[in-house]
C-alpha cells in the first residue's frame, strides 16, 4: 500500500505541475504581452510599463512561472488588475458559494441515485425498472441550466417557495444559505443523479451473476437481501469512480448554474474577469478548479485501492 501511495503521489505532483504549466502558457505566454492585452489598444506607454512592473513581466516566462507556483503554494495568487484586491481573497469569498453548491449537489445526487439504482436493479425488467430507466434517460438529456430556469418559473415565480436568485449569505444562518442553494443544487444534481443511477444499477446487476450471490441465495436470502448485503459492497468500485469523475462536471456545472440564479460564486467572478480581460483572476480560478479535479481523482484512486487490495498492483 505504501509503495502504491508513493507512486500515486509522484504522479499527482507531476499532473499538477504539467497542468499548471499548460494554464500558465495559455494565459500568460500565448497572449504575447499580457499587460498590453489587459489594458487594450489605447493604453499609455507609462501605464503599460507600470503594469508590466507590477505583474513582474520584466522577468522571463520561466522565472515568472516559478514565482507564480511558489506564490500559490503560500496562498498568494497575485493581485487582480481590475479590482486591485488580492485574488486569493476574491476567490475564497466566492468559494464559499461554489464549493457548498457542488457538494450539496453531489450529496443530492448520491441520495437519489443509490435508492433508485438499487430499486431498479432489484426490480429488473419489471415496470418499476423501466420507469426508472426512462426517467434517467430524460435526466441525462436535459440541459441542467434549462431545468434550472423551469424550476425558477415554477417554484420561485409561480409558487413563491424560493427566491428567484441571489444568495442569502451564510451570516443569516445555515438554513437561509442552504435554502438559496437548494434549487441550484437540484438542477446541478439531476443529470449526475441520472448517470449515477444507471451506473449503480448496472454495477449491481453485474455482481448478481457472481458465485457468492448464489451462495447467499442458497442459504435462504431473498434476491433483495442478497443484493443489499453482498452485491452492494462489490458494486461500490465503479460507483466510486463515477462519483470522482462527476466532481469535475459538478464544479464546471456550478459555474453555469450560478448564472441562472445570479449567485455570486466563482462563475460570476470568472465571467466578469473575462470581459474585463483580467487574466490573473481567470488564471487563478482555472488553476483552482483543475487542482480540485486532480486532487479529488487522486483521492478516489487511493480510496478504491484501500477498498480493493487487488487494484494496488496496477
Amino acid at each position, binding site marked *: 500500500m505504501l509503495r502504491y501511495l508513493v507512486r500515486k503521489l509522484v504522479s499527482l505532483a507531476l*499532473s499538477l505541475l504539467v*497542468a499548471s504549466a499548460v494554464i500558465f502558457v495559455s494565459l500568460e505566454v500565448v497572449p504575447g504581452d499580457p499587460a498590453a492585452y489587459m489594458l487594450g489598444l489605447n493604453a499609455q506607454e507609462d501605464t503599460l510599463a507600470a503594469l508590466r512592473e507590477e505583474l513582474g513581466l520584466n522577468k522571463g516566462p520561466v522565472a515568472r512561472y516559478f514565482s507564480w507556483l511558489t506564490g500559490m503554494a503560500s496562498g498568494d495568487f497575485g493581485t487582480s488588475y481590475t479590482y486591485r484586491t488580492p485574488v486569493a481573497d476574491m476567490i475564497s469569498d466566492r468559494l464559499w458559494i461554489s464549493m457548498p453548491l457542488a457538494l450539496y449537489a453531489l450529496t443530492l445526487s448520491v441520495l437519489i441515485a443509490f435508492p433508485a439504482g438499487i430499486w431498479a436493479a432489484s426490480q429488473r425488467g419489471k415496470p418499476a425498472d423501466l420507469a426508472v430507466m426512462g426517467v434517467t434517460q430524460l435526466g441525462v438529456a436535459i440541459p441542467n441550466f*434549462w431545468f434550472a430556469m423551469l424550476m425558477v418559473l415554477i417554484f420561485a415565480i409561480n409558487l413563491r417557495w424560493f427566491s428567484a436568485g441571489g444568495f442569502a449569505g451564510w451570516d443569516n444562518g445555515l438554513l437561509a444559505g442552504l435554502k438559496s442553494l437548494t434549487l441550484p443544487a437540484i438542477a446541478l444534481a439531476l443529470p449526475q443523479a441520472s448517470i449515477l443511477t444507471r451506473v449503480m444499477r448496472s454495477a449491481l446487476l453485474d455482481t448478481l451473476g457472481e458465485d457468492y450471490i448464489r451462495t447467499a441465495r442458497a442459504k435462504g436470502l431473498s434476491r433483495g437481501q442478497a443484493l443489499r448485503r453482498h452485491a452492494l459492497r462489490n458494486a461500490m468500485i465503479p460507483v466510486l469512480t463515477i462519483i470522482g469523475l462527476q466532481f469535475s462536471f459538478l464544479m464546471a456545472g456550478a459555474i453555469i448554474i450560478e448564472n441562472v440564479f445570479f449567485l455570486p460564486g466563482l462563475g460570476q467572478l470568472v465571467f466578469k474577469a473575462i470581459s474585463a480581460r483580467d487574466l490573473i483572476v481567470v488564471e487563478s480560478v482555472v488553476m483552482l478548479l483543475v487542482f480540485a479535479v486532480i486532487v479529488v481523482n487522486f483521492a478516489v484512486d487511493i480510496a478504491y485501492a484501500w477498498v480493493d487490495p487487488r487494484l494496488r498492483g496496477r
Partner: protein
Amino acid sequence: MRAGLLLGLLLTVVFAGAALISLLWVPYDIEALDIANKIKAPSGAHPLGTDHFGRDILSMIMVGARTSIAVALVAVGIGMGLGVPLGLAAAAHRGSLLDEIIMRGNDLVFAFPSLLIAIMITAVFGPSALNAIIAIGIFNIPVFARLVRGAALSLWTRDFVLAARVAGKGAVRISWEHILPNLTNLLIVQGTIQFSLGILAEAGLSYVGLGAQPPIPSWGRMLADSQTMISFAPHMALFPGLAILLTVLGLNLLGDGLRDRLDPRLRRQAR
C-alpha cells in the same frame, strides 16, 4: 429496445432535417426584426411564438439546429481525428514510453472540463463558435483515445493479428488494415454519444456567452436571452430548451440502439 432505436432515429432525422431545410427555407427571415410583433405567444402565424425582437422562434430554432449540429459534429471530428490515431499508437506500443505519455496526456486533458478550456480560450481570443468547437473537440480526444486503446489491446492478441505480424506487416499497417476496421462499430456508437454530449456542451457554452455570438442563432443563446423574460414570456424559454432535450434524447436513444444492434456482445453492458 427496438422502439428506442426508432424513436431516436426519428428525433435525429427531424432535427437534422430542420437544420437542412433551414439552409433553403425558413418560415420567417430571422434577421428581419418585427418589433410590432414582439413576445407573442404561439399562434397560427407563429407556431412557437416570437421573441423580444419579434423574430419567429420556430425559424430561430431551425437555424439554431445548424449551429448546434455544426459545432458538435466538428468537435466529434477533432476528437476522432486525433484520439483514434493516439489510441491505436498507444495500443500498438503497449507499455512503451509512448503509451505512457499518451495515457498521462489523456489524464491531464480529463482534468480540464470543456468549460474550463473554453474559458481559457475566450479569455485570450474572445468568444466565438470556433472556441466552442475547439474546447469540446479537445475534450473529445482522450475519450476516443482511451476507448480505442482499450479495444485495440484486446484485438492485438487475436490470431489474425498474429498472422499479419508473421507476414511481416509493421505496427502502422496492422493498426490501419486490421485493427481499425474492427473498431468501426464501436466508433459509430461512441461518436453518436459524443455528438449528443457536444450538443449539450455547446448549449451550455453559448448560454454563458462563450459560444456562438449574435447574430448567429444558437439554442443556448436563445435561452440566455429568454431568462429575464421568463415570468411573462415562458414560451421563449420553453421551446429552445425542448429542442435541446429532444435532440440529445434522440441521439442517446440512437446510440444505445445502435450499440445493441451492432454489437450483441455489448448488450450485457447496455442494460
